[in-house]
């Protein structure tokens, strides 16, 4: 793999250092401080910050505008883009909009079904799927052309990422699916939150058996539990999430006021164990509305300080 874009995240990964990314959900309103405040808390502890795109289909301030706020603060954003809400015209147009602000990372996603959000009666688009969005960004970047075939003046220069969920079913196609994303042109992966480490390591092994770890940078996704209630919710309510019973038990085994601490401890231990897993090239810390804990997690995991330019 060689560096193809001005992305800092790509440069760090290419240098062989473990990368650290995190994410912020934009507010349900237009106050930019909701983003800038979170970003300030974590900026020195991560290499790039993802901005989610109307996650769980709940209407929020748009990912692109929030990314621009980060960019203006000198922070490297990763634009998350779902194919649920926009057709190929709007997707390409937003990619160019992001490129005009020199946003250099993009994460291509399907997006949760709108049923889960605040507009369950709305239409969905799904003109192209996440695999095809990866192809679209690579096509725009590498060929310098629109899907329609015309030339793009000043094509986007984006490091192209995708999500992978090692825990969704059917398990047997999870690695073939990763291979498919590599073939489509994905350059980095941020995984679903990992709680079942054995299963994750099995998935990584199967990926290594096919040499995929040398074709794509895999960032292991982690999310600290705040409480046993959150652990149970993630286990039972969030589709495609695998929270083993012993993890829930461990959270339940400590008094309520100690649970946040336990959640952080589990998260740090996960990172420490996965640092040893061949093919894991970094971590994606999704501290959902708990961004203030990211610095502590990064420090305790031995991932601080972050590389400087």
């Amino acid at each position, binding site marked *: 793999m060689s560096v193809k874009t001005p992305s800092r995240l790509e440069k760090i990964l290419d240098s062989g250092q473990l990368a650290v990314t995190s994410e912020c959900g934009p507010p349900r309103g237009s106050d930019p401080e909701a983003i800038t405040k979170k970003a300030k808390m974590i900026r020195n502890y991560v290499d790039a910050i993802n901005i989610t795109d109307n996650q769980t289909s709940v209407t929020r301030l748009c990912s692109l505008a929030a990314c621009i706020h980060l960019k203006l603060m000198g922070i490297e954003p990763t634009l998350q883009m779902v194919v649920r809400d926009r057709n190929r015209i709007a997707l390409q147009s937003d990619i160019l909009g992001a490129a005009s602000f020199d946003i250099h990372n993009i994460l291509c996603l399907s997006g949760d079904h709108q049923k889960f959000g605040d507009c369950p009666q709305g239409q969905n688009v799904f003109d192209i*799927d996440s695999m*095809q969005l990866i192809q679209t960004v690579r096509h725009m970047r590498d060929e310098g052309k629109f899907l329609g075939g015309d030339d793009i003046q000043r094509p986007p220069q984006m490091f192209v990422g995708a999500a992978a969920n090692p825990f969704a079913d*059917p398990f047997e196609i999870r690695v073939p699916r990763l291979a*498919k994303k590599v073939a489509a042109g994905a350059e980095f992966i941020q995984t*679903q939150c990992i709680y079942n480490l054995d299963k994750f390591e099995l998935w990584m092994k199967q990926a290594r058996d096919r040499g995929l770890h040398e074709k794509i940078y895999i960032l292991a996704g982690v999310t600290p539990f705040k409480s046993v209630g959150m652990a149970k919710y993630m286990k039972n309510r969030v589709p*495609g999430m695998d929270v083993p019973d012993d993890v829930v038990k461990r959270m339940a085994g400590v008094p309520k006021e100690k649970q946040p601490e336990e959640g952080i401890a589990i998260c740090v231990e996960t990172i420490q164990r996965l640092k040893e897993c061949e093919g894991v090239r970094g971590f994606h810390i999704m501290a959902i509305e708990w961004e203030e804990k990211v610095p502590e997690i990064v420090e305790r995991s031995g991932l601080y300080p972050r590389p400087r330019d």
Partner: protein
Amino acid sequence: MIIAEKKPIEEVIEMVKDFRKILIVGCNECVTVCEAGGKREVAVLASSLRMYFMNQGKDTQIDEVTLERQCDREYLEEIRNRIEQYDVVISLACGVGVQFLAETYSRFPVYPGVNTCFMGVTEERGVWSERCQGCGQCILGSTGGICPISRCAKRLLNGPCGGSTKGKCEISKDLDCAWQLIIDRLKELDRLDEYEQIAPIKDWSTERAGGPRRVVREDVRQ
């Protein structure tokens, strides 16, 4: 076939309550099979309406007829002589039949008596499910005979998404994940290696997106 569901009687009453001479027209095709608009449902609706108007103390005439099809002019012609005596028509055909009836007898108000739902199959009596959305460019050959456009909640051509759990779709535990079905079928056919072929971006111009569609066949045209 086309699957439809009966409209609630209150909704039908609301549409026709100011009329006095009502003709209810059923259809002997799909809506008969899915028990929404055949001869029997016409009779049931007619007696419900008669009861309603009687309770209101209103004198009305409600007649019933069920045509072989409402999507063919030939059969619609069968009511040309008698339609004059009514001031409203309720069609229990699918939306296609309702429109063709209204188009044929444009001087008469025509109201729908069913909600047209989808193209699907009878899984068992009383259970129907969707199989096709008529995208105009069939891809079943590469998906093991299972259509992700009509059966995946995100119509993913390169699924499954990360929400597929234990064979079920992320939107409902009662709904099979289409991509689980596709993968199972490819495995059964010993064609799982095909899973790794990336389905190209689809041309949706043959679908609804391309505007109202028409098929013209010069070879069979008269």
